C-alpha cells in the first residue's frame, strides 16, 4: 500500500516541532467499597440484572433451578466441562456424548425442572444451534463492584456467539474474583488475555433510541442472571 508511508509521513510532519504533553503517570483514584458484594449487587440490580447469592451450601444448585424456571428454557447450554467442575456442579455424560470435535454442551430440562447430577449431552457447536438456544451459562473472568459489571472472556474451546445469541444469560461469579473498580482490571487483564475478545457486560441489552424511553432486550440477551459463589 502506497498510502501507508505517505500517511505516516504526513502525520509525522504534522506532529513535528510542537511540544509534547507528558503522558500522565498518576492514575486518578477510583472508588473502593467496604462491602463490594453489596455494591456489585446494588449496581447490577439497578441495570435490570437478577442477582442470586449462591455462597451458602447448596445455594448454587438452588440458584440454577431458579434461573432455569425463570428463563422458561428446556435446554441449558454450558460453556465447558471445566465450568461444571470448577463450581462443583454434579453431572454425568450421556451415552450419546461425543468425545471429539467442536461441541456445544447442553442438558435437557423438560418442564423447566433441573435435577442433579445433570445429564450432559452434546451437539456440534455452530451458529444455527446457538441461534435456537434459550439459555447459556459461563463463568465470569471477574466482576467489577463499582458498576455491577461482569467481565467475560472468550477462551479456547468456546466462541463469541455463546454468550451473545441466547436470549437469557447466566454468569457464575466467584466472590474472590470480585474487584473494586475498572482501574484494577484494565492494566493487566487485556495484556494477559489469550483470547480474541474480552467483554464487559453490565446488565441486559438495552436501547433508548426512541424518545429516550428505556427498552430492554433489543439485540443481545434480554435477561441476565448472576450467581455469586464462594
Amino acid at each position, binding site marked *: 500500500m502506497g498510502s501507508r508511508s505517505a500517511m505516516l509521513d504526513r502525520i*509525522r510532519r504534522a506532529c513535528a516541532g510542537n511540544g509534547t504533553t507528558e503522558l500522565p503517570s498518576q492514575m486518578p483514584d477510583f472508588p473502593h467499597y467496604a462491602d463490594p458484594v453489596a455494591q456489585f449487587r446494588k449496581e447490577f440490580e439497578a441495570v435490570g440484572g437478577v442477582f442470586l447469592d449462591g455462597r451458602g451450601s447448596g445455594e448454587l444448585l438452588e440458584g440454577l433451578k431458579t434461573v432455569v424456571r425463570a428463563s422458561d428454557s428446556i435446554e441449558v447450554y454450558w460453556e465447558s466441562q471445566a465450568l461444571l467442575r470448577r463450581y462443583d456442579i454434579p453431572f454425568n455424560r450421556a451415552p450419546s456424548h461425543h468425545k471429539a470435535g467442536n461441541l456445544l454442551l447442553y442438558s435437557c430440562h423438560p418442564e423447566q425442572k433441573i435435577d442433579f447430577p445433570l445429564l450432559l449431552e452434546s451437539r456440534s457447536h455452530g451458529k444455527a444451534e446457538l441461534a435456537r438456544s434459550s439459555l447459556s451459562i459461563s463463568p465470569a473472568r471477574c466482576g467489577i463492584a463499582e458498576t455491577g459489571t461482569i467481565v467475560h472472556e472468550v477462551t479456547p474451546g468456546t466462541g463469541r456467539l455463546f454468550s451473545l445469541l441466547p436470549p437469557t444469560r447466566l454468569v457464575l461469579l466467584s466472590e474472590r474474583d470480585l474487584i473494586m473498580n475498572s482501574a484494577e482490571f484494565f492494566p493487566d487483564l*487485556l495484556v494477559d488475555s489469550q483470547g*480474541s475478545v474480552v*467483554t464487559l457486560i453490565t446488565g441486559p441489552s*438495552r436501547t433508548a433510541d*426512541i424518545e429516550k424511553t428505556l427498552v430492554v*432486550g433489543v439485540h443481545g440477551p434480554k435477561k441476565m442472571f448472576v450467581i455469586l459463589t464462594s
Partner: protein
Amino acid sequence: MINTAKINRNVEAALADRQLQRNLCSTLGKSVRMRDDSVAEVPNWEELSRYARDVKLHTLSRLDHYLAMLEEKITAQGGKVIWAETGQEAVQFIVDLARQRKIGKLVKSKSMLSEEIHLNSMLGRAQIESIETDLGEYIVQLAGETPSHLLAPALHKSQKEIADLFVRNLGMTPSGDVHEITSTARRVLREHFLSAPIGVTGVNFGVAETGTIVLVENEGNARLSVSVPQIHIALMGIEKVIPRTRDLAVFLKVLIRSATGQKMTSYISCLNGPRRPEELTGPDEFYLVLVDNGRSKILADRFLRQTLSCIRCGACQNICPVYQRIGGHAYESTYQGPIGAILTPQLTSLAAAPEHAFASSLCGACQEVCPVQIEIPHILLKLREQAQREKKTKASQLSLERLVMGGWALVMCSPRLYVVFSRWTRRLWRWVGDIRGLGRFLTPLTHWYKHREIPELAARSFRELYRSREE
C-alpha cells in the same frame, strides 16, 4: 459542498417545525439532567477529565508513533491494517473486498466515520446492501434520512413517527408501542446478522499497547456485528488511538457518564484481532481501516489540534442552546452541534462550511461539559478570525461593513466624539426608526427585526443620568 443559503432555510424550517421542537425539548432536557446527575456522583471528575485530556493531547503529539505501534500489535494477532488517506480509499477497500468475495450484503453498527465518508450511499452505488443495525440508525435508514445526533440518531423523530414507519415498511402491527417496535427490529435484524458475511463497525478506542479495538454500546448490535459474520471490518479515524489499556478505565468512565449518564453501558467489547484457531465462533478475518480524511491537516495546528481529542459523547450537543433549538439536520453536515461547528470546517475547509463557526452564541456551555476539556468557544473564535481574514483578502473593495466598522472605531477612540455621536444617534433613531417605524427597513436591521423587536431606547443616556445624580 455545504450550501449557506440552505442552512439558513433549514434553521427557519426547524424553528417553525413544532413536532421537531417538541421532540428536541423532551429528549435533550432529559439527557442533560442524566449527565449532570451522573457526573455529580464522581468527586474527582475534574481530575479524571484532566487525565483524559492530557492522554489525548500527548497521543496527538506523537500520533505516528502510536499508530505504528497499534498496527504492529494488530498484525501480530492476525489482523490486517489498511491505511486510507481519504474516505474514498476506505470505501474502495470495502467495495473491493466484497466484490472479490462476491458478497452483496453487510451489517453495520453505528459509526460516525462511516457517515462522514458516506459509506452507505457509496456501497449502494456498488450494489452492496448495507444494513444499519443500531436501532436509531436503522430507523433513520428506513426513513431515508441521516442521523441528527452523535448518540441518538433518531432523536428528531417521535415514537408515533417511528411506529408509522415500521408499519409502512415492515408490516408491523400498528400498536405504536415501543416494545413492539423494538422486538420487530430485533426479529428483522437478527435475520440480517445471521446471513451477512461482513460486519462493519466503528471504533471508540484503539489501544496501541495491546492492539485492542474497543467498542462501547448498549444494544448488542456491535457485538453481533463483530461475532456473527466471517469478516469484521473496523473503521477508525486516526485520532482514536490511545497508548495504554489502563487509560481505558478513565476514558470509559468520562465517556459513558457524559454520553448517557450511565455508570457503564451494557457492553464494552475489547477485540484483539480475528478469532484464534482454537476459538469456535467469531470472524476469520479482521481488518482495521485507519482513515485520515482531513485529520492530519488539523493535527498540524498546535492550538486547533485539540479538536481531535473528541471522544464523541454528544454532551456538547445536548447542552447547546443553538442545537437545542435547531436540531442536528439544520447543520447539513455529519458532525453537528458545537463539536460539528469546529470539526466540519476543519475537516473540509472554511470555504466549504462558512456558516459553522458562526452557528454558536459562544455561551461556553459546551466547554464546561466536555469530558476532554476541548476549548470549543476559543476554537470557534479562531476559526471566525480565519474566516474573516480569508474574506478580507478576497474582498479588498470598500464594503458597507468596513465603512461602518471604520467609523465605529473612530467614535470609540474619542470620548467627546462618542457623546456627540450617541446623542445624535438617539435623536435620529427616535425620529426615523422608532416613531415612524422605519427602522425595520434599514438593510442590516431587517434581519434583526425578523425574529425580534429592538428594545425602546432610554430617554436619557447614562452620562446624563449620572450628571443629574451628582447635582
